[in-house]
């Protein structure tokens, strides 16, 4: 018998089409995948291969066309506060300040239930410190740079403390140094130092192979048009991971492996 617990999320033969027949676009096809509780799963693939679509289906914002998608054995039929989402285009509320955006879920949603006002404010402050937005608390999204907006979106997700984090290229707009700092912070928030049973579950979309390897337990490589599972690569690098990890031989080898897998797809996608 294996020690493997029941998967947190299961995708079985998931297919997603957009638009009416016969002009339908097949965004995702025959995708089967188990996501374990406490797992950090990264998804990589050329742009347009259906990564965002998979995330939207996991979030419950898009129904699957066929196949099944279950969480704890029950079909995912809509969004829920236990699955926090960070959107690729941030989806910040233009009428809310940085503080208002980050605290939105705490102020109006179940994430804030049972918390006092002071506790909610403390969480917002911590999230602001985490992403380095101190001093911009009262600014509106239109007053922020792209990178700052992305950090607000990240802080909003973190402040809600969801059990499952669905993140769509969350660090793509940041400069290299900030990105590395926040990668470390993400691993801490996920629960890198805790036993697996206490970790959150993360589905993390990125176009950076190195980022995927540094963060994830497994990297899902998707092929494009339609988005299909090409390979799942196990990342058996020791935790906690740090700068040494990035310089290690096995890191470079994994990077090479995934790059080989993705290369022909990337060419195929750009040449189309």
């Amino acid at each position, binding site marked *: 018998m294996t020690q493997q617990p029941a998967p947190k999320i299961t995708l079985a033969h998931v297919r997603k089409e957009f638009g009416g027949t016969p002009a339908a676009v097949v965004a995702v096809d025959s995708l089967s995948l188990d996501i374990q509780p406490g797992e950090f799963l990264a998804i990589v693939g050329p742009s347009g291969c259906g990564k965002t679509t998979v995330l939207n289906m996991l*979030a*419950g*914002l898009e129904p699957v066309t066929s196949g099944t998608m279950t969480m704890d054995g029950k079909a995912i039929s*809509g*969004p*829920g*506060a236990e*699955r*926090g*989402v960070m*959107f690729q*285009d941030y*989806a910040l*509320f*233009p*009428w*809310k300040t940085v503080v208002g955006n980050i605290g*939105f*879920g705490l102020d*109006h*949603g*179940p*994430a804030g239930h049972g918390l006092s006002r002071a506790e909610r404010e403390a969480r917002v402050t911590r999230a602001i410190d985490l992403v380095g937005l101190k001093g911009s608390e009262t600014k*509106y*999204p*239109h*007053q922020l740079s792209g990178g700052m907006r992305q950090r607000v979106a990240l802080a909003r997700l973190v402040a*809600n403390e969801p059990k499952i984090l669905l993140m769509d290229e969350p660090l793509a707009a940041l400069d290299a140094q900030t990105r590395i700092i926040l990668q470390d912070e993400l691993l801490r928030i996920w629960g890198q130092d805790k036993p697996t049973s206490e970790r959150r579950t993360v589905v993390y979309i990125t176009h950076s192979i190195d980022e995927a390897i540094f963060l994830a337990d497994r990297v899902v490589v998707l092929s494009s048009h339609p988005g299909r599972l090409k390979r799942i690569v196990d990342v058996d690098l020791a935790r906690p991971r740090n700068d040494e990890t990035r310089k290690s031989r096995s890191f470079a080898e994994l990077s090479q492996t995934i790059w080989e897998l993705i290369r022909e797809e990337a060419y195929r996608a750009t040449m189309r």
Partner: protein
Amino acid sequence: MVQRIAGMMASFSGVLMGNSTAPRHWPAWTIYLRTMGLFCLLWYAMSWLTPNKILLPSPLDVASALRDRIDDGELVANATVSLTRLLVSVSIASLIAIPLGLAMGTSRLLEDLLEWPVELLRPIAGIAWIPLALFMFGIGNGLPIFIMIYTAFFPLLLGTAAGVRNVDRRLISAARTMGIPKGTLMRHVIFPAALPSIMTSARLAVAASWTAVVAAELVGAPSGLGYAIEYYRSMLDTPSVMAFIIVIGTLGFLCDAALRSLSAALMPWANAEEKR
């Protein structure tokens, strides 16, 4: 020199367009004064060329009539009446049209239900109802207020509904993934997201209502700016008629300016959104 003229022209067009991004060498009001001065000069010349002063009184006659109407209290009294009617009717129209528009923008069923009645009534100008309203309300406050509510109602209803329908879907998605309940979603996401559109339609509603008040008061009320115009016309006092026309224009402009500052105060986040 050429640059300076170009700059002045740019800032002048800036004033006309109501934006302030153009570099400005002169304050806006000096340019406004200059334009008005030119206009008055033309007007003066034309009235001088017109043999019958009753047909086109000169700006000086109008100015002195304006002072007389201020002195005898007619101007303030009638302007207060008309502005009160405007405030009352736009408030009532908002209280009905905005909630209905919010519901219409979110519910397919309600939209289908209301589409035909609205589309049939909307092209009928408010003033077309004046003769009928005269039977229903007689002469008094009822008629102008009815006409003005009618006039303000459709821009508010359709502007609100369109604003709700055009709310960025991603914002609703974001709120739903945070588990925001339905009622909260309306109050804290859909309404603020639609607010710019609602405020724009409020400006349209006030402008249309202000036009209608004058028409309604011309026939259907014993007071107000429209009534004053009709009264002084019957006295053949055209300078006073012109004076009231100028007051109507000025007050309409000021109402819009007030609404614009209200928008800016309500939505400090929206200014830059528009400019982008």
